[in-house]
């Protein structure tokens, strides 16, 4: 019974190959609101299942979660399509929620999940904006966003940084608390977490370089993000940073 619960939870807190279901669904979801909803809510049923059944979480499950996370982080290195990249990053981030469940702290796992998902929602909205403007959100296809659409590029950069667990955003503090907690109890897991974190940075920087860098189109291209939308994104990011600082309180 426990194993069945864990397997079912493994679909929502994606363990490879169960995670393939989420990526297939995300690829078929074309409406932005549906993609955003999927990204925001997908891990919550998994957390609810584990909370309801409270099965023991064996060590092999932790290893499976870490391997799944590492696999998606590694595979994200070569991705150029923003939608796919977001899905892979989501799988890599959410798989680590198993480690959060195994070491419960002051902050509820649901909040950790929300903190990990929120930057991905912003990212998928930005990806939709890029698709509307250029027909595809694909790194290396057009590039030069910083020259052509500076506001959109600026927001995109900060959102990708938030997603790959850079400081002051919730994923950073989730990763930080996990690494700090495992450093002495399970040094191998801490090393794996450090490696996964490094892979995210690499993948994120590659994606950004393909989208943001380059001479850009000097002619009249698509319109930039409106000031109102920019402020809305800035407010969302500020709220995320606030959430990150709240998570930081859980480190005490």
């Amino acid at each position, binding site marked *: 019974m426990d194993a069945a619960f864990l397997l079912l939870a493994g679909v929502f807190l994606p363990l490879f190959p169960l995670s*393939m279901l989420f*990526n*297939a669904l995300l*690829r078929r979801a074309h409406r932005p609101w549906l993609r955003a909803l999927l990204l925001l809510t997908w891990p919550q049923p998994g957390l609810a299942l584990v909370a309801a059944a409270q099965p023991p979480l064996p060590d092999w499950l932790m290893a499976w979660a870490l391997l799944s996370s590492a*696999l998606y982080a*590694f*595979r*994200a*290195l*070569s*991705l150029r399509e923003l939608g*796919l990249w977001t899905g892979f990053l989501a799988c890599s981030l959410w798989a680590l929620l198993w480690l959060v469940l195994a070491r419960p702290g002051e902050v509820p796992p649901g909040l950790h999940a929300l903190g990990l998902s929120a930057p991905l929602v912003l990212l998928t909205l930005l990806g939709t904006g890029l698709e509307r403007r250029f027909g595809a959100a694909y790194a290396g296809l057009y590039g*030069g966003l*910083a*020259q052509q659409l500076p506001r959109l*590029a600026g927001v995109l*950069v900060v959102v990708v*940084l938030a997603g790959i667990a*850079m*400081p*002051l955003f919730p994923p*950073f503090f989730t990763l*930080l608390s996990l*690494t*700090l*907690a*495992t*450093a*002495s*109890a399970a*040094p191998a897991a*801490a*090393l794996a977490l*450090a490696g996964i*974190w*490094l892979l995210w*940075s*690499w993948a994120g*920087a*590659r994606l950004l*370089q393909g989208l*943001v*860098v*380059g*001479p*850009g189109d000097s002619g009249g291209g698509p319109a930039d993000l409106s000031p109102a939308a920019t402020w809305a994104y800035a407010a969302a990011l500020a709220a995320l940073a606030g959430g990150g600082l709240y998570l*930081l*309180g859980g*480190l*005490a």
Partner: protein
Amino acid sequence: MERLIVLVAALPLCSALLIQLLFHRPGWRAAQVSVTFTTLSFLAAAAVLGLALAGQGPMAITLPAAPWGSLLFDPLSALMMLVIAGISLIVHVYSVRYMAEEPGYARFFLLLDLMTAALLVMVAAGDLITLLIAWHLVGVLLYFLLGHDSRSPSAWRYSFWTLLTYRIGDLPLVLAAGLLHHAYGTWSLPELFTRISADPGTHQIAGFELLDLVGALIALAAFARSAQFLLHTWLPYTMDGPTPVSALMHAGIVNAGGFLINRFAPVFIHTGGVLHWIFLVGLVTAVIGSVLMLTQNDIKKSLGYSTMGQMGFMIMECGVGAFSLAIYHLIAHGLFKGTLFLGAGGVIHAARRDDGVPKDELYTFVVERRPARQRKPWLLMAAITLAVPVSILVAAHLLVAQDYFQKQGAIVLLFFGWVTGAQLIFATYRMRSQNLWRLVGLSVFSFAVVVLGYSLISHAFDLFLYPDPAFRQQLYAAADIDLLRFDILVAFVTAVIVLGWLLTYYAERNGSRRHRRTGRAWLVFYVLVSREFYLTDLYAALTRGLLHTATRLNVWLRWA
């Protein structure tokens, strides 16, 4: 007092916020605001250092009911805050006109202000979490500063190398923080150091002594930040970034490794062989950095490798227990390298009209490589070469501390001083000169001035940064090795160096007739060095291999 310290770090942050909120178009106003706030920050930092010099004791400023966000006032943070604020102010003032015609003028100052704030928080961090956040942010901000010109793929490519190397250095620090917190139950740095000194050696992790492991992780973080060998390839290639950023990076950011080791000095005094490894890595970096610097035909890469060599020397100083000397070194190097970068453009411009190099004896010797034909008696010159630097070094160091020669680390540094002095005199008497004795006398005099200045200043740094004599003694003791082994090592290295000089002397005396095999060996060595030991090629191949594997995996798993 508390307000002053908070002000130093908060002012650049306020400036960045103002620029973001008020200045959307390029203009002088953003630069004016930025320079004004940085000036105020510098003045506040000067006041903080003044208080530290006046004898104000260490203190921590903490947020109520939060384990993070605390700032530490102690001699190290006060000194480093002034250095960072000072270098940042110079870079700000220089950038006002230098960056005027670049796109993203206001953004540049915003990033510069954020970087200044992150650096100031990093050096004043009073707890592990604040230190980690600032340490991470410095790497991220440097990535965007180096890639400021978003039209240049090469600038971004190399700033990406920097980001990745810095991330490699960030993660060991996170692990070290986790281990320390788990073992000692506090995030606060002063509290942590107190607990470590009370209970240094009872913790073990995976069969290792905890503090050895923590020391090694902190050293690894410092190596990545300070471009030590194998983690250095980003440094010489990041010259596509704006010149002010290069100046800030080479004068301030890259020195963070030396600061970090100093910050964790109370950990290192309880480690076993970690300082020896630090010494070895520093030594290898110093030698390889200097060799690579000498063989570059691109002046900017040459400057990059010069920084690498200097960073190696700084890390090596930590490895022999001369922690405060490393801080003095990083400040001196920062000022000198910052000046070089900021002055390079003007010098190149002026050199197009007139190179300004006098065609004198030095030019004949260094550039045209024409040594003197008539030599003085070699025995006399050899005696001067070997004995004079030793006498000067011993006299200068006895002046500052009687027990100086009880410390192995001090002897290692004296040894380097002796090699440098002897090399100077060795080179001098081969120069064409009308009055050789005058030249030798002047060389010896300038060497004496440098050694005396260096000894006095470094001693003053020692007293200021580590006022407790017992702690200073512990730092040197932690770097000690078995005395017999130490003596044998010093004798061996001395013999090798003297033999090298003798070989050079006889090779020049008998002309440069070289055997064919030796010539080929030199050629192979030159190829190796000119290709920078194939390390960049190796890393590039590794990267390509990993990306190819990731692509194959994605195809195989149908992108799901």
